């Protein structure tokens, strides 16, 4: 049962686990994450674009500081971090995704380097370009001031002046155009000016030097800056972002496919579970229905139960009563059996004195006609005396008859004999009355009254009753001790003792002795009945107190004797124990408490 519960439990856990697994798989595709990633990629694009824009603005001198070219990197770095963490959160092994991100990051590094260079170059270029016009202005005004101090215009000065003005124009043109070949003539021009530098006075040559150096910066840096810009713009940034996008899309699509798969599986699984649930529900409903039916039956049964119980109780009590009756009958028959024994014994005992009383009285009765005759003679004698005719003869005859009768009496010694006979009869009658008295003593069968009873006396009366069974066969040895009177039901105890004694005598096959011992031990009175009979075999010894157990032939005993004895002793609060040895004898010991508190009202068994 518990194993089934366990497997059921594991099985349902497993099914739930599958459900949870599928559910998390379906949920694992977080659409917010997806949007965030695509959004981040879009931000990358636009930030890169803005960065380029700022570079261009700086190049066009629309912006006068480089913070705007520098700061996008900071934003881009945090965007890169965001993208990296977002993608790593995806925890997918996509080499193409990794590769494209790496490529993109590399291109950003490259871009940053190029922009750093651009910043450095452009700052200087821009400064020189701004300054060059001032420098040339300064140079021209210096030339002018030099010229004005000289009265004659110096042709080299004039040439320098126009050359520097051409230079300025050319430089500005150079700056505006995308043509590389314009650099050559300017550089050539600058080389010439450089070579002429020494021929001018210091004040002029210093200015010229500044012009040349800054012009050189412009000429040199411009193509560098242009190529840097070209490189910056042509960096495969958007391509790389696109690659990331594609790689990510591939990952995403496969995830969507996975998700769809898991979703379908989930639906199917959920369907299966639902079906299972429905089935279980159906089964449950069925069992409920069955249960309901059973319940109804049960209620009905419950309702009838009381009736049935009552009926059963009645039946039982009838049966019980019958049983009790039959038990009572059994007990009664047991009682009758012992009574029968008793009566047999008592009848025998009474018979002998009764017989000689009878014959004695018969003998006395035989004497009676002689006495009656004598008595009649005497009654007639006064009449003779009074008769006038005084017939001596008749008188003499009458007297002779009396004398004769009296002599015969004397001769026969009839009076002595009669006296003896009557005395014998009297003693016989006494014997009978003793007998009856013991019978009465013994057989207070119907009185349960508890009284102070002397068990020794009780035993004696039992012996009288049992005498018939015992005589000529058993020698009784009395070993009575001084025992206190106890309150009990003497008739019941006598029954027990009789039973034990009769059993003992029956156990003795030829002749033997029964020893009756009474003694008291602390608060107990013990009666020990020991015989020298054949003993009780060990295997049946434990059963001898069972009701209906008997070793006697069928019809000879009820088998209730000892069990009733046991009950009686038990109800007296006492014990009955047996010790027996086969071929040696049996010893029953009854121990009864001196002050027993048993409520004798409950003495039903022997009733």
């Amino acid at each position, binding site marked *: 049962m518990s194993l089934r519960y366990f497997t059921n439990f594991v099985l349902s856990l497993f099914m739930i686990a599958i459900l949870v697994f599928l559910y998390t798989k379906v949920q694992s595709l977080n659409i917010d994450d997806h949007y965030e990633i695509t959004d981040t990629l*879009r931000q990358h694009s636009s930030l890169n*674009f803005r960065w380029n824009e700022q570079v261009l603005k700086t190049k066009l001198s*629309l912006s*006068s500081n480089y*913070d705007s070219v520098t700061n996008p990197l900071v934003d881009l770095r945090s965007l890169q971090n965001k993208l990296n963490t977002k993608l790593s959160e995806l925890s997918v092994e996509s080499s193409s995704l990794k590769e494209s991100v790496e490529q993109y990051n590399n291109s950003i590094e490259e871009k940053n380097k190029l922009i750093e260079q651009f*910043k450095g170059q452009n700052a200087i270029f821009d*400064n020189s370009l701004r*300054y060059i016009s001032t420098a040339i202005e300064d140079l021209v005004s210096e030339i002018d001031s030099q010229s004005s101090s000289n009265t004659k215009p110096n042709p080299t000065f004039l040439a320098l002046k126009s050359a520097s003005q051409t230079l300025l124009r050319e430089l500005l043109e150079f700056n505006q155009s995308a043509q590389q070949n314009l650099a050559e003539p300017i550089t050539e021009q600058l080389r010439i000016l450089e070579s002429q530098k020494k021929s001018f006075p210091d004040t002029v040559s210093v200015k010229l030097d500044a012009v040349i150096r800054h012009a050189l910066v412009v000429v040199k840096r411009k193509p560098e800056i242009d190529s840097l810009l070209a490189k910056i713009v042509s960096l495969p940034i*958007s391509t790389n972002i696109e690659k990331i996008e594609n790689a990510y*899309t591939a990952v995403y699509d496969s995830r969507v496919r996975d998700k769809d798969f898991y979703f379908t599986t989930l639906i199917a699984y959920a369907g299966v579970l639902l079906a299972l649930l429905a089935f279980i529900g159906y089964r449950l409903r069925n069992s409920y229905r069955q249960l309901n039916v059973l319940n109804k039956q049960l209620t009905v049964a419950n309702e009838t139960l009381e009736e049935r119980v009552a009926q059963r109780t009645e039946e039982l009590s009838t049966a019980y009563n019958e049983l009790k009756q039959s038990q009572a009958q059994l007990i009664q028959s047991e009682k009758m059996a012992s009574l029968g024994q008793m009566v047999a014994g008592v009848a025998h005992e009474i018979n002998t004195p009764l017989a000689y009383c009878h014959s004695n009285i018969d003998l006395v009765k035989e004497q009676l006609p002689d006495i009656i005759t004598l008595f009649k003679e005497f009654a007639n004698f006064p009449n003779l005396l009074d008769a006038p005719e005084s017939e001596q003869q008749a008188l003499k005859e009458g007297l002779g008859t009396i004398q004769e009768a009296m002599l015969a009496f004397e001769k026969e010694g009839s009076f002595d004999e009669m006296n003896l006979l009557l005395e014998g009869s009297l003693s016989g009658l006494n014997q009978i009355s003793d007998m009856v008295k013991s019978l009465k003593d013994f057989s207070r069968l119907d009185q349960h009254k508890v009284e102070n009873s002397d068990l020794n006396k009780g035993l004696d009366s039992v012996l009288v009753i049992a005498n018939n069974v015992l005589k000529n066969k058993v020698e009784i040895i009395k070993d009575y001790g001084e025992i206190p009177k106890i309150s009990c039901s003497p008739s019941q105890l006598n029954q027990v003792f009789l039973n034990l004694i009769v059993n003992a005598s029956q156990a003795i096959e030829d002749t033997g002795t029964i020893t009756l011992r009474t003694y008291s031990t602390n608060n107990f009175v013990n009666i020990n009945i020991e015989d020298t009979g054949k003993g009780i075999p060990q295997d049946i010894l434990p059963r001898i107190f069972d009701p209906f157990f008997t070793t006697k032939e069928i019809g000879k005993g009820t088998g209730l004797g000892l069990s009733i004895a046991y009950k009686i002793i038990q109800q007296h609060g006492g014990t009955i124990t047996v010790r027996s040895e086969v071929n040696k004898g049996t010893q029953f010991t009854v121990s009864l408490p001196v002050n027993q508190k048993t409520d004798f009202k409950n003495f039903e068994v022997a009733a």
Partner: protein
Amino acid sequence: MKIHKVLVTICSFISLIAVFTLSGSAVVESAELNEPIQPLKPRQDLNLEKVNLGKLLFNDKRLSGDNSISCASCHDINKGGVDQLPVSKGVGDASGLINTPTVLNSSLNFRQFWDGRASSLEEQIDGPIHMKHEMNTDWPSILNKLKQDQSYVDSFNKVYKNGLQADNIKDVISEYERSLITPSRFDRYLQGQKDAITENEIKGYELFKRYGCVACHQGVNIGGNMYQLFGVMGDYFKDRGNINDSDLGHFNVSKNEQDRHKFKVPSLRNIALTAPYFHDGSAKTLRDAVKIMAKYQLGRTMPEKDEELIIQFLQSLSGELPAQAKGEKQ
């Protein structure tokens, strides 16, 4: 997916067109709006708990191997955020290799260090901590020392889930550094308060722009947003002589020949307080520095009058620390 691409392309086109059509008018406006130097605004988004913790640590000498110096020993907030030495002095008076730049406003620099080798303040801190001639220690020993200090442990536990950690120490110090923003009179001028600086200072600013210092020293931090060759218009190092590793500048980082002698253009904020100047500490006065700049970076000679005005302008760049950022004197 496709829609994004289309959208991006359309946006790109629109922006391009906008840029080029607007550029004509923008030139005129930009003179006014687009000052090369932009006013400084204190950060408002700082975690004050971190700032205060960072301040404590910035001034804590337990961050050095022998407990002798703190960040503040070299970056004294009350002395413009520098030590005012030609080159720094580390533990046991070990002589450094390079001049100490200020920590004030350094959060605005696009990279940290003269050669730009650290990309962030957090990354920067690892430098002085481990440098033999600076603090000469390591994080485990610092953490060991600081963990004895229950108040640090408690404070860090309050701010961070993982408590006292190297990264969190860097974070709080950086946060503190981000609070070291020093708006000056000049910023108020830029914001429209025309009398915030003197006439001469205004003239100095005009010269600063005219001479082309703004080519490199521009932006919010008046520098700090690009690398530049030190010696654009002349070979500074040849003239100075005795070239060492720290003179190689960004080359040390990129190993790219183009980057030889290129340095992060330093911020000129609080420049009047941070003498001596340059990475080698060679310019003892601002005048020296301006002279060198004019010569080597601009290829210009500058009349003393102009120098003076530019210096006056530069002095107007000394700013005020926000109250909570002021460091204790160590």
